């Protein structure tokens, strides 16, 4: 069966659609002052990865995860503890991160992000690599070692 695959919109359209929500998330995570730099960093990261995207599915989950990663980096630089995953409502028909939380809670942050994006949102490794700012191979490895770790725990 041919699945409908969303095409990738011009970056302006993508930015206009998600900029407000990204800023809101960053302000919740970092406070008003630090959110500004993180906002710019989030969309520059997205822009750097944008021409490697192969489809336009789940761009919202993708950019919010980039934002969450940027917030973690900011927390780390400031020597503060941080959570890895953004709160996502389920409106685009995918499980929210929280639905996978009971499984993935105990994973290291990078593996957790990779597992949730791969299996919760069905993103491809190009997109996950962009979020993690890693190579495609490293993204694949993070997801598979996360899954292995979960298996060990479950069985």
């Amino acid at each position, binding site marked *: 069966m041919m699945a409908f695959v969303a095409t990738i919109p011009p970056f*302006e359209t993508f*930015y206009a659609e998600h900029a*407000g929500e990204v*800023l809101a998330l960053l302000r919740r995570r970092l406070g008003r002052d630090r959110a500004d730099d993180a*906002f*710019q960093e989030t969309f*520059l990261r997205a822009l750097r990865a944008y021409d490697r995207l192969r489809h336009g599915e789940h761009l919202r989950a993708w950019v919010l995860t980039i934002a969450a990663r940027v917030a973690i980096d900011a927390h780390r630089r400031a020597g503060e503890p941080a959570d890895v995953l953004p709160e996502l409502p389920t409106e685009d028909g995918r499980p929210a991160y929280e639905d996978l939380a009971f499984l993935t809670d105990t994973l290291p942050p990078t593996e957790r992000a990779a597992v949730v994006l791969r299996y919760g949102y069905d993103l491809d490794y190009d997109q996950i690599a962009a979020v993690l700012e890693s190579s495609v191979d490293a993204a694949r490895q993070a997801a598979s070692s996360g899954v292995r770790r979960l298996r060990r725990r479950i069985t």
Partner: protein
Amino acid sequence: MTVPRELDQRFRDAAVHAGLLDAAYDVIESPVGPLLVATTDRGVLRISYVNGFEPEATLEDIARVAGKRVLRASRAVDDARHELDEYFTGSREQFDLTVDLRGQPAFGVIVLGELAKVPYGETATYGELAARAGSPKAARAVGMVMNRNPIPIVLPCHRIVGASGKLVGYAGGLDRKEQLLRLEGAML
């Protein structure tokens, strides 16, 4: 949540500065109405009359030709804005801007190249332009190229008129064609 204007502007400037865009555009004011001007690292890619519509279709078109990383960024179109402003105030007769004709068919590129040579304040007919492009019988095809001109004003399709000297047609509307020719002091 609305993104504050300065923050939004800062991101757009940073995107230009980092060289991450396939194309940048802005909508600029002019005496013939708002113009969407898009540029790439090769030159001006599009000028289109906005006509009050959302420019979504134009952005899709730009993305198809140049790449998906299309962003509104006023700073990137400064050169084009400056030369257009000078043109509209009558202090510039020739554009120094380079043009990006990617995506145009070969015949269109030849015709647009000849079109660029039609001097300020003068007109030529569709047939004359066809002859200059090496296809004297192709007046009608030249008309199609004019109608789809990706960079009007800079590539002066308003200077191309019917065999009788009548203005005939203009993708931006005949009013604008007349307005541009009057600005240039062309005999109408």
